[in-house]
């Protein structure tokens, strides 16, 4: 069974983003970029399936600028076998990403696609679900634990009330939550090996997908800022301040 892992190149989670003065977006110039953390969890899960002999091949896919090949290389260094870079310019909305991924699934026939639950830049939390819908496959979102069976998977999911277990028939789309696993760091020898692994370069047109955004971004603005208040030394002062504020 092939496993497909979409990996998105995003601003590193440690970077504090700055909104551009002209409100056209956020400043990405000279900012550290990394693989979306939820996608690292996806790659880790896929590689573990391969190590357990449950997956035959792990394919990492990224849709983005030329530099997204670095994100694919990271996945290859973690243990993915090959990559597909679908080169695009400008922002590609989740629906268009899902359409490209669907076309790739039609060509590659994976038994499982593992996406992140959410990209930490657009915070959309929709691509995996959309892909599942377009393929008419079941989905197991916010995965906490995966148990791969014969033609099916049992998945424990993180939900608002606690944990839920569902069973999906394969092929299926899984989206990762934080506790699914702890992604490995790529070792130096594996980083070297990854340089020799193949990355196919494609364009959205190869898959017949129009990536023109459907939503018009009118502006990107700064959220209201909070000011630091007062620091106190004792618990009675602390509670006094809260009483003063009318919240106790």
């Amino acid at each position, binding site marked *: 069974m092939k496993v497909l892992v979409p990996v998105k190149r995003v601003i590193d989670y440690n970077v504090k983003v700055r909104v551009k003065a002209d409100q056209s977006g956020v400043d990405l110039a000279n900012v550290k970029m990394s693989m979306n953390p939820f996608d690292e969890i996806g790659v880790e899960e896929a590689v573990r399936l391969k190590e357990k002999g449950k997956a035959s091949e792990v394919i990492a896919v990224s849709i983005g600028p030329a530099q997204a090949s670095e994100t694919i290389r990271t996945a290859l260094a973690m243990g993915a076998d090959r990559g597909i870079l679908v080169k695009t310019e400008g922002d590609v909305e989740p629906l268009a990403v899902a359409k490209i991924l669907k076309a790739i699934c039609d060509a590659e026939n994976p038994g499982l696609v593992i996406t992140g639950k959410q990209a930490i830049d657009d915070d959309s939390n929709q*691509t995996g679900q959309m892909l599942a819908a377009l393929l008419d496959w079941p989905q197991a979102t916010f995965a906490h634990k995966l148990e791969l069976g014969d033609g099916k998977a049992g998945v424990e999911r993180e939900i608002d*009330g606690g944990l839920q277990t569902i069973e999906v028939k394969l092929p299926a789309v899984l989206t990762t*939550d934080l506790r699914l696993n702890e992604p490995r760091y790529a070792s130096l020898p594996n980083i070297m090996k990854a340089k020799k692994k193949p990355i196919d370069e494609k364009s959205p047109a190869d898959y017949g997908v129009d990536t023109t955004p459907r939503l018009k971004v009118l502006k990107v603005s700064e959220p209201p800022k909070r000011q630091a208040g007062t620091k106190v030394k004792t618990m009675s002062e602390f509670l006094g301040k809260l009483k003063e504020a009318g919240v106790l």
Partner: protein
Amino acid sequence: MAALVIAEHDNKTLKDATAKTVAAAVQLGAPVHILVAGQGCGAVVDAAAKLAGVEKVLVADDALYARPIAETMAALILSLADRYDTILAPATTSGKNYLPRVAAKLDVPQISEILKVVSADTFERPIYAGNAIQTVQAAAGKKVITVRTTAFKAAASTGSAAIENVAAASDPGTAKFVGETLSKSERPELTSAKIVISGGRGLQSGENFKMLEKVADKLHAAVGASRAAVDAGFVPNDYQVGQTGKVVAPDLYIAVGISGAIQHLAGMKDSKVIAAINKDEEAPIFQIADVGLVADLFKAVPEMEEELSKLGY
């Protein structure tokens, strides 16, 4: 055309998140209908019919929706989609689960977690963990929207909507519900509590969270946590507040032993008053806290409980 709000409930009670989503839907200026999909959910239907601004409640009462999953919910919503030009759900783990399926099938983008209705086709939503706010305009055609419930005030229960039964949709049969382990608590729900007290890595163990629970019980507060506290296994996953956990906006948020990473702030910075207890006076949480106590939590929290008792809590 009307807007359809998908109700969130457990077959017994209608969740507050629905009333808040209705409040957002009403601002679109079109008639609002609610879909209640469940089994034996009469009390939920009654509560939904009372929400101010709702014209009609659609009820799909069927065994298929006793424990709805994304596939069955999406099929049901799609069977009704022709009648609506906007479909909304709360941005809960269930709304986030089924609604993108609906959007994809309708071939429209989903507008995730709106914070504000600017006009019938223009919305504000957070990106980059709420460090930027995007104003987006939808193209003509259907709109599919999830609503950040903390950003809207719940619709009142003063209405009386008509009730219409609708047929169940067919089951794609590719997924099934197996079981659930829900956190049980007498305390209010994290997302609707007036006071939230959250613990972080500084708490050091699940056992130590009991200190926070004692304070929470006095204040009728909910207990939350940082990702680090959940990852370390101190508390279950549903306690996590943040960019990728729950978003809360209580009157008072008390952060104990939490450093204040941007991912955590994303889930609580719209609280009315933020208070923090941390032994490190440089902790970033103090940059946004209205009231900060620089102290060792193992001394401060028991003190807090004691002083609250003295104050009659």
